[in-house]
């Protein structure tokens, strides 16, 4: 026995040979990877320099300061064709964010309704919601965008036969016109009142909760908060003597002047993004609500909690934990998908960048700007959502 052990230990080397040692092996593989990658980069870099030299192109971001020379249909900040490329990119980024923000709000409401509809006890509502989801999930977004742009909005009447809607809104094939609010003197006070109202509502909710904890009685919260948040600004508005006028769009013979206009490009992109993403959000909402064990509902009912409150206080907080992570990625998808604007000529970041690329031939710089901005948006959203997720996560003992 001992002889054998001694023999074995004599035969076994202390350490494996270096090429069998995991440490050296992994080091060698990693070094090899770096070498190959570095070689590839150097090769591509020299090729690129050579290509640029042949095409008589310089590189660097200096061109961003030169005159853009193209017009943009929709700009949230002052812009003209004399502005710089940099300014044009700013306009594009703001347009991207605008359509994404509006789309996210709309798609959340729509998706929530449809998702709950898929779980409805009403057969017809359930089937309709299913048809909606199966239809929109399986058609490319680009087809839906063109559908709105070419099919529906092109069918709108021309300027002379505009559809006039209440509150001075006008719809025709040039876009959607609505009154532009002009705030008079002292309007800032309304904003202050709104802020005060929100703060007061927040404090009242906290007090109400403390009181409920102490006494078991729940003071009215919802209606008091509504009064605070909406009532205070409205009161201020009336006290100030309603300092608000509207710049109404006026239908002329060939054009419509005044008011704000939203172009058909924006509308079709916004509608398509909202409708398309809503199908995915509906599925997420459905999965989230169904992911909460049935026992939770039954336990709540057994405690005598009303169905509405059961939903609000027992089911939804738990469902939200399941819903939030995939919902975030849908919001990000919507933001990234807004880049399809380029197909219908809505001046978003990609469309503006594409125009600049075609004008100047600065492929590398423009693509780098795109990557930088989109990756920053993604990373910022993920960081925020990770923080939020940690906050919402179940605290386990």
């Amino acid at each position, binding site marked *: 026995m001992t002889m054998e052990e001694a023999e074995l230990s004599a035969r076994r080397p202390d350490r494996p040979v270096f090429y069998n040692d995991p440490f050296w092996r992994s080091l060698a*593989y990693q070094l090899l*990877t770096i070498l190959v990658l570095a070689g590839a980069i150097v090769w591509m870099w020299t090729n690129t320099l050579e290509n640029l030299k042949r095409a008589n192109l310089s590189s660097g971001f200096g061109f961003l300061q030169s005159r853009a020379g193209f017009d943009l249909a929709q700009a949230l900040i002052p812009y003209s064709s004399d502005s710089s490329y940099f300014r044009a990119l700013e306009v594009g980024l703001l347009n991207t964010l605008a359509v994404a923000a509006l789309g996210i709000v709309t798609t959340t409401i729509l998706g929530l309704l449809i998702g709950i509809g898929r779980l409805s006890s009403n057969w017809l509502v359930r089937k309709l919601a299913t048809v909606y989801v199966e239809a929109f999930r399986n058609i490319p977004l*680009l*087809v*839906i965008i063109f559908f709105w742009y070419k099919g529906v909005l092109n069918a709108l009447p021309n300027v002379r036969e505009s559809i006039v809607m209440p509150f001075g809104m006008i719809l025709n094939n040039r876009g959607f016109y609505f009154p532009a609010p002009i705030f008079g003197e002292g309007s800032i006070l309304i904003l202050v009142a709104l802020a005060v109202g929100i703060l007061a509502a927040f404090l009242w909710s906290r007090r109400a909760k403390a009181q409920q904890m102490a006494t078991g009685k729940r003071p009215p919260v919802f209606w008091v908060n509504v009064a605070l948040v909406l009532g205070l600004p409205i009161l201020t508005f009336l006290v100030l003597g309603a300092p608000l006028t509207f710049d109404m769009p006026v239908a002329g013979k060939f054009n419509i002047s005044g008011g704000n206009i939203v172009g058909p490009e924006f509308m079709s992109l916004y509608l398509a993004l909202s409708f398309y993403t809503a199908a995915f959000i509906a599925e997420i909402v459905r999965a989230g609500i169904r992911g909460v064990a049935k026992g939770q509902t039954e336990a709540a009912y057994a405690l005598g909690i009303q169905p509405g409150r059961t939903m609000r206080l027992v089911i939804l907080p738990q469902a939200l934990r399941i819903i939030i992570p995939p919902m975030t990625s849908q919001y990000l998808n919507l933001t990234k*998908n807004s880049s*399809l604007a380029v197909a219908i000529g809505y001046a978003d970041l990609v469309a503006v960048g594409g125009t600049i690329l075609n004008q100047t031939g600065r492929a590398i710089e423009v693509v780098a700007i795109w990557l930088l901005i989109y990756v920053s948006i993604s990373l910022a959203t993920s960081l925020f959502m990770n923080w939020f997720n940690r906050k919402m996560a179940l605290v386990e003992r």
Partner: protein
Amino acid sequence: MADNTNTSLQFVRRELVAAQKPPSQEIGLLAWARKNLFGSIFDSVLTILALLTLLWILPGLIDWLFIDAIWRGTDRTFCATVAQGGIQPDGWSGACWAFVADKFQLYMFGSYPVDERWRPMLVFVIFAATLAPLLMPRVPYKVPNAIAALVVMPVISFFLLHGGVFGLSVVETSLWGGLLVTLIISYVGIVVSLPVGILLALGRRSEMGIIRMLCVAFIELIRGVPLITVLFLASFMLPLFLPPGTSIDKFLRAVIGVSMFASAYMAEVIRGGLQAIPKGQFEGADSLGLSYWQKMGLIVMPQAIKLVIPGIVNTFIGMFKDTSLVSIISMYDLLGIVRSSFADANWVSAVTPLTGLIFAGFVFWLFCFSMSRYSNFIERHLDTGHKR
């Protein structure tokens, strides 16, 4: 034996009483409607609202799509009103299926030479013949079948479509188009993204720091940007990276862009599967003395992939839909060719764009919907009862 004298007093029922009908309120259409449509006041309101919406939308839709639609015709006059220079009465509007029928070949094959169209058709047949048995769980010989479908089939198809061998004339990729291109790009994307995605997912969980970092960087960069920027990157920057004078096919650039994009997403799906495998499986494989690739290939991956098949199919569906984006970099996939056909002066009319788009949307829908149904089926089939 028993005394039969008082038989008349005994009562034993020899046969079963016929079952009574349930209360009339509990059966039939009416009861079903009461339960499922008018369960409460709120439900009733919803039902009536939904019915009104349907009544408002459906008749017009059916009229437009089928009844008022034009099924036969040779040019735009059939699909235009008198005021627009056509033969239809003023105020007419309906789908112009004659347009789709006229363009059908174009939508399927693009500008592929008419005399050579048997080649793409043959490819469709080979495609179906190798893929169908692979998708049916009961058919044996999965490994050779997979090699045929994923390796041999693409190579044969390429030579068949492109030509230049066996006396076939060369058909440049710029002539390919329509559904053919959509299918080729998504198929190549699928074939490439699966192995590359597996490697990226393994790299992301590797213990080698540098390889892990590189994989994370690639995945997060690609997933953080829209596909259209990746396509722009492939179509504008790839030519810059190559030695001067070499040109790279536009078709190939689009395929590279789509494959890169799909690989990053596939990697994340597969990572999800890897994370769900219990640690004991890895340790068990290690204790048997299996090498890294044996451990992953024989123990971990088969379980991980099985877990995430729905996710993989969802990625495929997403990619199939995303191929429509190549039309933005001026390629003629199904959507691209449908859009370009709107400009045909012979057919230009108010209703042709909408008709064409509905057709394109329907074709995409058909493919994606069948894929998702198949995913449901395979999920049930593979369910080994380990789910909680």
